[in-house]
């Protein structure tokens, strides 16, 4: 029996989206939520805290989503960490076939109320067949 998802790092440069997502996961989903507004800050959080899953915005100033993903994979401590993309560019990142190293792509806008259960499902799938 796999333990449920408990800690999530949410990375987005839009403070309003970050606020909505963290509120939904924390208050409705009961998860522990860490937030970062860009890639480099996110890598710092990963070093300090034990994170189960990363929710990563694709387009960000400075270090963007794909660059951040690359850095996560390059670090042996986080190389197998499940990463989920969030993007408004649904044409570029199809939901059906997520890019390599990405567990899933969540298209913006999404429903924050059901977000926790969606992430729990992805967490379970990840452990059933680790990529």
């Amino acid at each position, binding site marked *: 029996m796999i333990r449920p998802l408990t800690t999530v790092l949410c990375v987005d*440069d839009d403070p309003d*989206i970050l*606020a*909505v997502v963290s*509120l*939904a996961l924390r*208050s*409705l989903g009961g998860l522990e939520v860490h937030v970062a507004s860009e890639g480099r800050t996110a890598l710092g959080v990963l070093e300090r805290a034990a994170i189960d899953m990363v929710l990563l915005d694709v387009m960000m100033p400075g270090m963007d989503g794909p660059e951040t993903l690359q850095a996560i994979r390059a670090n042996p401590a986080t190389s197998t960490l499940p990463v989920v993309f969030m993007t408004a560019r649904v044409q570029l990142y199809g939901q059906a076939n997520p890019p390599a190293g990405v567990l899933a792509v969540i298209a913006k*806008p999404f429903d924050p*109320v059901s977000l926790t259960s969606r992430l729990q499902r992805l967490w379970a799938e990840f452990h059933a067949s680790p990529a």
Partner: protein
Amino acid sequence: MNAEGARRLERAVRRLAAQASVSAVVVRRGDDVLLDHRIREADASYHWLERDIGRSGATLSVQHHGALDPGELNDAIAWCDDVLAASADVQELAAARDEAAKQEALLRSVLMTLTDGVLLYDREMQLVECNESAVRMLGVDRGEIGRAGDGPPRAYRPDGTALSREEWPAYRAVWGREWTNGELLQFRRRDGQLRWLLISAAPVSAGAVVSIADLTEFHEARAASEDHLRTWQALVDALHEGVVLFDVQGRVEQLNAAAEEVLGVRQADVRDGPVEPNAPPAVDEQLRPVSELPFQAARRSGRPVTGVVLGIRNRRGGMRWYLNSAVPLPDGRVVASTMDFTSVKSATEEMEQRKDEFISTLSHEMRTPLTSLAGALALLQAGLGEGNPAQTDGLVKICTRSATRLTRLVNDVLDLERITGGGISLKPSVHRVHDLVRHAVEAIAPAARIKGVAVLAGKESDDLVLTDPDRVAQVLGNFLANAVQQSEAGNRVEVTTTRVGNEVRMAVRDEGPGVPPAFRPRLFTRFAQADPSGARGGAGLGLSICKALALALSGEVGFESHPVRGSVFWLTLPAYPT
């Protein structure tokens, strides 16, 4: 013959003629042949006529009527050189003369009704007779008939060289006994008119007969039609569209310059007759080979074929696209046209692509505020704010901010469309530039103060502009908002006004980080943002709106950027004369 001889001859002839039975005598005297005859008039009196009718050597036929008294005749013969004939039958001679007169009248009426001009010259090159048509064509004075004219009208060959008097066909016929058969000459008539005449001339015993056909109208019509044809040829050659005439066998009969490359046939190639087209293989829009070309389809079906798109790889390897049509002619030939629309096609495709990108970017720009708006609303609906006013307030603020962002985005898109589409109406009036600047500075001041940024309007100037103040405020407001956004607390933003020639330049200078070099070329394009996330606020339409507005105001926008000194964004407007 001496004087005595002449007198004797005359006496002999008179004696002969005095006989009641002799009415006509033909004698030869030296070179001259004389016919003397008398005619009984209606009152039974006799009237003698003498006429020089020819020269020796010329054919002269006078019938010998009745018998002369041999003694008298011999007597006469003894006195003249030669008596050729004498006639006693005056009635018959008169009848012959009448008949001749009738023939002559008939001939004259035929001559007069001929549309061809006919002229009769005698051996002295005197105009003996001519018909009305000749008078009309040559502009000859009828009075000239019977007396020596002052030569032919000025005549020219088709190449423009003048004919000498001796080259005029009537002269050649009279003096050279030379035939002329249908020579085209141009004549300047005495009234100054130029006529194109087809001349024939024949030597006859009496001199020469000249016939003239006036081809002026025909010649002018032909020249006009040739001119017309040349004009059309020039027009067709000037066409950007290729035009080809295919013969019934599908060979190229004629083509214009624009059709040369696509057909692989030059205009010079068809000068000696139709040639086979030598076009490279064509493909359709899906790049599949085409088996039947439009002109072949038109020939087979007998129906016009229009709007067929064909691609042909040119010698340099590039694909060129052609729009083709073909129309069958009733005689089985086909006229085909082809237009190279490669540049139009690629421009259209580029426009489509740009539109797709715009839609895609726009939808992305809308999804971001929609995510927070819809998300915050969903959380409120799920009861997340219940019993927690601060949390409710936070979520409502997110909704408000997101809705504002969406509204601004929609307004910007509409504004940009209206300005670039020429849909804005400007309300120009004369203003001091400094006033426009001051208002813009005052408008941004509260926001700048919150951020701790000082915004200053530079030195006053009295320059005037004739412009729409609201639109200038929009451009300056945009520059100022960007400048404040790029600034940090303690930075300064300054707006300076300078006069450069016939233009007034308003420049907004900040002390921010400057525009990243990679981003500079597309700074004024739609949705351009150095920061792709939109984290700084706008959707990247602001500067493209400024550019479109400046254009509408007959001005210009631009910028200079330096990583340390910051950026300068400027707007120039035509100065209003003071």
